[in-house]
């Protein structure tokens, strides 16, 4: 089927431009089905977000959208408004599990996982329990109990200490990636930064850690992000801010623009068109700047 003809047939059908990992194509040879978009919780905001779930490889991907004003696509012999570019990138399911573990921790007791990961808003969360190697993952963020002589069930309880340690490692490996990718992490906007090798030497280690902390904070609740900041011994971004309860101020870290966009996205389109939130790295530079002031 020629794509040109195809486009002609689909008058007005919304076309999504996607970038996905190459191995999904290879994996599709072996599997009949098992790739699906589902709505799950965004562990940072608690709202809904679109994820791509691979039943075959038992892998979870998040969908992020590049969206900038005044863009459109020409796709063969058709035009698509909006100029959106969707990214499906692997996501560590532990961030989502953590959302539920923290919620369940209010009850303050050890619980089996299937009683922790319960969600009326996003019932597809049960898919998370199908992911392989969960026990090993949970090791990073929970205390666990189990008596193999009675049953094979494991009981888990959120551990903040372990979680912070785990997040600290995440920040370290993200910091390393920022350096290898020559991402400009300084609070000043320098148009040269994205491609100039010299920039690396002028960015301070602290800037990298702060930027990495910001990236990770997009996957954890606000409170934990503050704790992580202390754990990393990041200085308060500004002395002019009122002292301890910096929470209110930091609320602006939540991608405000993204929310707006998402709403627009919603009103225009229904259902599947709600593929994702343009958050994170895309608005990151601006946020880092705000925070730096």
């Amino acid at each position, binding site marked *: 089927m020629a794509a040109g003809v195809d486009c002609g047939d689909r008058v007005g059908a919304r076309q999504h431009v*996607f970038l996905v990992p190459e191995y999904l*194509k290879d994996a599709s040879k072996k599997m009949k089905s098992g790739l699906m978009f589902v709505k799950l919780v965004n562990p940072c905001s608690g709202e809904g977000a679109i994820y791509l779930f691979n039943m075959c490889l038992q892998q979870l991907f998040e969908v992020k959208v590049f969206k900038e004003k005044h*863009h459109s696509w020409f796709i063969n012999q*058709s035009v698509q408004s909006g100029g959106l570019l969707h990214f499906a990138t692997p996501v560590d399911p532990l961030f989502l599990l953590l959302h539920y573990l923290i919620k369940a921790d209010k009850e303050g007791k050890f619980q089996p996982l299937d009683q922790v990961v319960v969600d009326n808003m996003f019932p597809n969360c049960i898919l998370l329990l199908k992911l392989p190697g969960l026990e090993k993952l949970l090791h990073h963020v929970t205390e666990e109990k189990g008596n193999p002589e009675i049953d094979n069930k494991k009981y888990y309880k959120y551990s903040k200490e372990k979680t912070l340690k785990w997040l600290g490692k995440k920040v370290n490996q*993200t910091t390393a990636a920022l350096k290898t990718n020559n991402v400009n992490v300084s609070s000043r906007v320098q148009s040269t930064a994205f491609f100039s090798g010299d920039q690396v030497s002028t960015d301070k280690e602290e800037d990298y850690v702060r930027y990495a902390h910001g990236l990770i904070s997009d996957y954890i609740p606000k409170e934990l992000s503050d704790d992580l900041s202390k754990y990393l011994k990041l200085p308060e971004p500004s002395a002019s801010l009122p002292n301890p309860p910096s929470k209110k101020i930091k609320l602006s870290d939540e991608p405000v623009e993204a929310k707006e966009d998402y709403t627009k996205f919603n009103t225009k389109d229904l259902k599947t068109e709600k593929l994702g939130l343009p958050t994170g790295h895309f608005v990151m530079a601006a946020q880092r700047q705000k925070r730096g002031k």
Partner: protein
Amino acid sequence: MESGVDAAIKRHRVHLRSATLRDAPPVTLHLLPCEVAVDGPAPVGRFFTPAIRQGPEGEHRGRTTAPGSRRTGPRAPHLLGSGGRCGFEVSFRGRCLRGEEVAVPPGLVGYVMVTEEKEVSMGKPDPLRDSGTDDEESPLERDFDRFIGATASFSHFTLWGLETVPGPDAKVRGALTWPSLAAAIHAQVPED
């Protein structure tokens, strides 16, 4: 009616037809620096494509690599500054556009995907569906689920800017570095 739809979305799964990822024919993509408020067919091959010419600097230097793909070392000289830029030129609605080819970051592949209308998948057989292997109903599929399929694939697209080629600090170039950062954020951390 409204609340019914809402309830359906909550439990919604949109299945991606895996077979379409293998069969997707190549597509030509242009990212324009303007909003065209229409979705639908357009005679791109009649008006736009034939008007594309090489930039004033001489011959097109070929595909450039996406910013995120260059993991080590300084950027290649041709990405530095806009003075030596060449690439393509075209006009759209009387405005001059300059652009260049941008490659999909390594390890990724581009797809154009279209959601199937419910009516199509319920009624007559859909072309995306009759791939033989996908016909068996998986237990994961439910009545209210929907389907999406790739109609085309790409490994590069043409990025257009108004008057000048979008610079290295263009947001879309930044976005293309996201997959490599995401990989680091979400990689498993070593056990103690």
